């Protein structure tokens, strides 16, 4: 099939794709609204009420503060800060350590069992330890997120570096590449697809651990705190609004990461073709 024919086909299918992408969510929300209204249960409020409640809760503030309310400033911003900082730290540490471990077969073999064990530990199990060490608060939450989210990036980076074509290593040795050059020109590009696969896993783990560490009794702020607070007051509208917000955030983060991945890997692939 020629390129022209493919693009023509895509153009012809565009209205259908658009209809599915936009139409399906709309139909689903309308069905949800109708079902919730017909059922009239306290546990399942209608989506319209959930959205309205969320809007009043977080986005009806003064224009000078980008319409954020006090509740949004108190609860959303600290959580966002924690999850982004935790994810960034886990990503940077994971890539750096993964590069360091993956380059030598001996070092990798030394660390492998310890790494496998650390990765097998369900991260929430260690949160009580972090509570003892750091007390409740942001350092504890950051430590939990970093410790939980680092393993997929670290192991994937190391595996990516290990899987590098030996021929390329020989070439690098022949042209006397300096270590820094090797990392930028050789190891990172070769490991990039796997690094991104690890980052995607880490991102959803970061979000889970952020919420988990804020759900613990004794936390004072954050989205998770708002969730437990609403639960104790049996305020189901807020519980639902928080879940919708978290889903939207997760979707947003994931889309951003996918875009970055597409850009980075696209350039990488283009460089390898030429």
């Amino acid at each position, binding site marked *: 099939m020629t390129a022209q024919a493919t693009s023509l086909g895509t153009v012809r299918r565009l209205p259908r*794709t658009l209809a*599915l*992408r936009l139409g*399906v*969510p709309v139909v*689903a929300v309308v069905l949800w609204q109708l079902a919730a209204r017909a059922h009239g249960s306290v*546990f399942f409020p209608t989506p319209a009420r959930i959205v309205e409640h969320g809007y009043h809760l977080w986005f009806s503030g003064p224009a000078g503060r980008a319409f954020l309310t006090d509740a949004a400033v108190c609860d959303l911003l600290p959580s966002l800060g924690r999850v982004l900082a935790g994810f960034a730290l886990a990503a940077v540490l994971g890539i750096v350590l993964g590069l360091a471990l993956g380059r030598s*077969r*001996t070092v990798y*073999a*030394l*660390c*492998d*069992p*310890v790494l*496998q*064990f650390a*990765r*097998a*530990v*369900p*991260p*929430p*199990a*260690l*949160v*009580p*330890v972090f*509570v*003892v060490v750091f007390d409740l608060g942001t350092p504890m939450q950051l430590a939990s997120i970093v410790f939980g989210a680092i393993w*997929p990036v670290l*192991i994937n980076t190391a*595996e990516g570096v290990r*899987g590098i074509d030996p021929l390329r290593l020989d070439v690098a040795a022949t042209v006397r590449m300096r270590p820094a050059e090797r990392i930028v020109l050789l190891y990172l590009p070769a490991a990039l697809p796997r690094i991104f*696969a690890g980052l995607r*896993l880490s991102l*959803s783990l970061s*979000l*889970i651990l*952020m*919420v*988990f560490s804020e*759900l*613990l009794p004794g936390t004072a702020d954050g989205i*998770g705190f708002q*969730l*437990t607070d*609403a*639960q104790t007051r049996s305020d189901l509208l807020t*519980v*639902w609004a*928080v*879940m919708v917000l*978290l*889903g939207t*955030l*997760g*979707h947003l*983060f*994931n889309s951003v990461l996918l875009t970055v991945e597409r850009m980075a890997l696209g350039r990488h692939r283009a460089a390898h073709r030429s």
Partner: protein
Amino acid sequence: MSPATARRKRTGRARDALLGAVGALVAFAACEALSRSGMVRRAYLPPASEVLVRAVELGGDTAFLNGVGATLEAWATGLALACALAIPLGLLLGSVPAAGQAARVLIEFLRPVPSVALIPLVSLLLGAGSETTIALVTYACVWPVLFNTVYGLGETDPQAKDTLRAFGFGRLAVLLRAGLPSAAPFIAAGVRIAAATALILAVAGEILAGFGEGLGTFIAQAGMATDGTRDVLAGVVWAGALGLVVNLALTAVERRLFPWAPEHRGSRI
């Protein structure tokens, strides 16, 4: 593979295993020394040997083992429920393109909801008990299995499908004879990933519930006690060992059932 290469590979593996054992010992000794030297407070990091002794001791404690059993039960039930839901649904979505495309949009919006965020709602609905944990585990496990099923069906050899269709086989027969065998390794990989997630959720649910029985409950209660870090870490050792055993077992099953799957050519997630 020539005998010489095979031998070199075997000795290489033996060397790696030996190095791994050395690495584990070094890490153990480092934790022990760090704690004994007094650089870190003992309440923060008890000596590794004490933690290990306590972990072994717990292995003889019936109440603790019952708790581990309860956790494993919730884990297995949730995982089985997720498979029973996700595999048929995945086969449907993967073989009917319009349904697949329509569902993809909904899945993209449902999947990022962090599963622990459901804990308050589910515990309001179901109360605090094993049902809550099972529901959470199921929710979290459906996604990896569903995704891998749909993705695996997409990898079916179109020629095999066409051939079967030419012989006059119906849609279902084509799905069962060509689609399912090619999707099976992917489904198995999805189940393995889901199994790890399920353990995270089972322990997390129990820690937050704070009562009942289970590994997470043990860890949560030890965390509240003064100087309970040793018990918490002993529980963590158990949790890590369980995770490791589950992962190794599932990898071994996968390797035996689907030796041709590309994933086993020296890579892992």
